[in-house]
C-alpha cells in the first residue's frame, strides 16, 4: 500500500469539492473492496475522503410507490429491511447471496455498485491487465479464466462484474442517483455499468467528479414471482460462476411481464430485452423459458476454462424462471436447488 492522507467530508457538497481539488483522491465508505485493492497496490489513491459522515443512510418512500435507498445504507441493513424483504424480496435475496455477514455489515449500497472485478489478473500486479494497466494486455484470455466472461467481452478484457446486488437492481430497473458540482442526474441501473470495449479501465458511467447519493427502486416489485439463483464453486461466501435474477408477473397462467438478469457472465449485469419480451403472453413453462434462455445466450463465447458456463447459464436461467413461476424462490440458506 502506498502512503496516503485522510480527510473527512461533512456533506455532499464538501465531498464533491474535495474530490475536485485532489485528482488522485478516492471516496471511502465501507472500504471492503478499496482497502483490499490498496493492499495489493492495484488502487493507489494518495488521499482518501471519508464519506461515512454524510447523511445518506436512510431508506425513504417515493411518491411513485417505490423506495429511495441512501448510498450509505449498509448491505445488511438493506437486505433485512422489512420494506425490502416484503416488497422487493428479489433484492434482499441477491444481497444475502453475496459476501459474508461481516462484509455486508460494512459494505455500502453505493460501494457495492462500484466494487471492481475479482479477475485474478486484475489483482495480480505481476501479470498484464488492461483494466489495471491499460495497454499491458489481458492475462485472463489465455490464462485461468474459469471466473471470466462469456458475454459482452472484448479483446482487451474478459472480466466480469462481481456484484449480486447489482444483478437484482438491474432486473428491477432501479435508478442510480448521482450528484456533481454541475448538478444531479439519474442513471438507469442497466446503463450504470459498461462493457469493456477498448477502455476496460472504466467500469461505470459515473464520472470521477460525481458521487452516488441514492438508488431508487420503482414501484414494480415482483414480490410474488421471483428467484435469485447463484451457482458457485463453494456454497457460500464465493463469487458467482453464474447467477440469475428472475422476476415474473403471471395472470391466469400467462406471463404479462418478465425480467431476467445474469451475474458472473459479463462486465455488467446482463439483460436481453428481446428475451424478456419473448416471454410475454406465453405460458409460464419450461418451453418458453428455454427459448428465452436461448435468446439471452445468443453470441455467448467462452474460453478454455469457462465454456461450461454457457450451458450452466442456460440451465440456471430455466431453473430460476421455474422457481419464480412456482413462487418457490431459491433459499439462500438451504442450498438444495429445487
Amino acid at each position, binding site marked *: 500500500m502506498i*502512503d496516503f*492522507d485522510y480527510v473527512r467530508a461533512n456533506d455532499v457538497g464538501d465531498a464533491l469539492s474535495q474530490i475536485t481539488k485532489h485528482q488522485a483522491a478516492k471516496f471511502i465508505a465501507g*472500504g471492503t473492496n478499496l*482497502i483490499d485493492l490498496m493492499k495489493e497496490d492495484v488502487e493507489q489513491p494518495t488521499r482518501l475522503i471519508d464519506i*461515512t459522515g454524510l447523511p445518506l443512510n436512510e431508506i425513504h418512500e417515493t411518491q411513485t410507490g417505490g423506495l429511495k435507498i441512501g448510498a450509505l445504507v449498509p448491505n445488511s441493513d438493506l437486505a433485512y429491511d422489512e420494506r425490502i424483504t416484503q416488497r422487493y424480496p428479489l433484492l434482499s435475496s441477491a444481497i444475502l447471496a453475496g459476501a459474508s455477514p461481516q*462484509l455486508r455489515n460494512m459494505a455500502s449500497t453505493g460501494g457495492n455498485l462500484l466494487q471492481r472485478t475479482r479477475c485474478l489478473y486484475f489483482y495480480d500486479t505481476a501479470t498484464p491487465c488492461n483494466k489495471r494497466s491499460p495497454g499491458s494486455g489481458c492475462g485472463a484470455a489465455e490464462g485461468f479464466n474459469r471466473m471470466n466472461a462469456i458475454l459482452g467481452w472484448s479483446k482487451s478484457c474478459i472480466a466480469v462484474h462481481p456484484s449480486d446486488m447489482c444483478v437484482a437492481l438491474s432486473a428491477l430497473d432501479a435508478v442510480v442517483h448521482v450528484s456533481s458540482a454541475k448538478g444531479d442526474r439519474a442513471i438507469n441501473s442497466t446503463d450504470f455499468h459498461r462493457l469493456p470495449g477498448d477502455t476496460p479501465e472504466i467500469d461505470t458511467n459515473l464520472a470521477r467528479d460525481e458521487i452516488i447519493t441514492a438508488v431508487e427502486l420503482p414501484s414494480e416489485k415482483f414480490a410474488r414471482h421471483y428467484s435469485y439463483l447463484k451457482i458457485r464453486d463453494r456454497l*457460500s461466501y464465493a463469487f458467482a460462476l453464474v447467477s440469475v435474477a428472475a422476476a415474473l408477473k403471471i395472470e391466469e397462467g400467462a406471463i404479462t411481464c418478465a425480467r431476467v438478469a445474469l451475474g458472473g457472465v459479463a462486465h455488467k449485469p446482463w439483460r436481453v430485452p428481446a428475451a424478456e419480451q419473448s416471454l410475454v403472453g406465453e405460458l409460464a413453462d419450461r418451453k418458453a423459458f428455454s427459448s428465452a434462455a436461448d435468446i439471452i445466450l445468443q453470441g455467448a463465447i467462452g474460453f478454455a476454462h469457462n465454456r461450461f458456463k454457457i450451458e450452466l447459464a442456460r440451465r440456471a436461467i430455466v431453473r430460476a424462471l421455474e422457481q419464480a413461476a412456482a413462487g418457490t424462490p431459491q433459499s*439462500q440458506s438451504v*442450498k438444495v436447488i429445487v
Partner: protein
Amino acid sequence: MQGRPQATSHPPERSLPPKLEVNLHVNGVEHRVFLRPWTTLLDALRENLDLTGTKKGCDHGQCGACTVLINGRRVLSCLTLAVMKDGAKITTIEGLAQNGELHQLQTAFIAHDGFQCGYCTPGQICSAVGLIAEGRAKTSDEIRELMSGNICRCGCYPNILAAIEAVMQGAQT
C-alpha cells in the same frame, strides 16, 4: 564511506502524512493513539494496543479471523482503517469475559471442542456473538450460512455449529 551510493542518487524523500490522533474505545477502555491513515484496526489492536487475541489470517477479508464487534456489529478489522473508527465502541475477544467468567460462547466452544489449532477461534466467537445479537439465524442451515464468513482450516465446523446451537438453546453443557 567509499563505495556507498551518494545520498543524492536516491529519490528525494517524501514526507509522510502526519499521524492522526484516534480515540479507540476497546473493551470498555479508552485508548488515545496516534496512527498513520493506513493503519488498519487489526494492526492498531495488535501492534499499538497489544491486544493480540484478534488474529491476522488472510488480511484480505476472505477468512474472518480478524472479526471484531464495532458498536455491536461484527466486522472485519483487516479491512477497517483505524482512523475511521475514532470514538466507536470496539469489542474484541479479550473483552468478552466478564468478572473473570468466560463468555458463554467461549465456554461452549471448549465444551464442544469447537477448535483444533485455535487460530480462527477469536474470530469465530466474535462472529457468533454478532450472529446471536442479530437474531436472524434460527435453524442449523441458517447458522451455517450466517457463519460462512469465518473459515476454519482444521474443519471444526460441526463442533462450532454445536457450540453456537447450545448457546442459542441456552443449554450449554
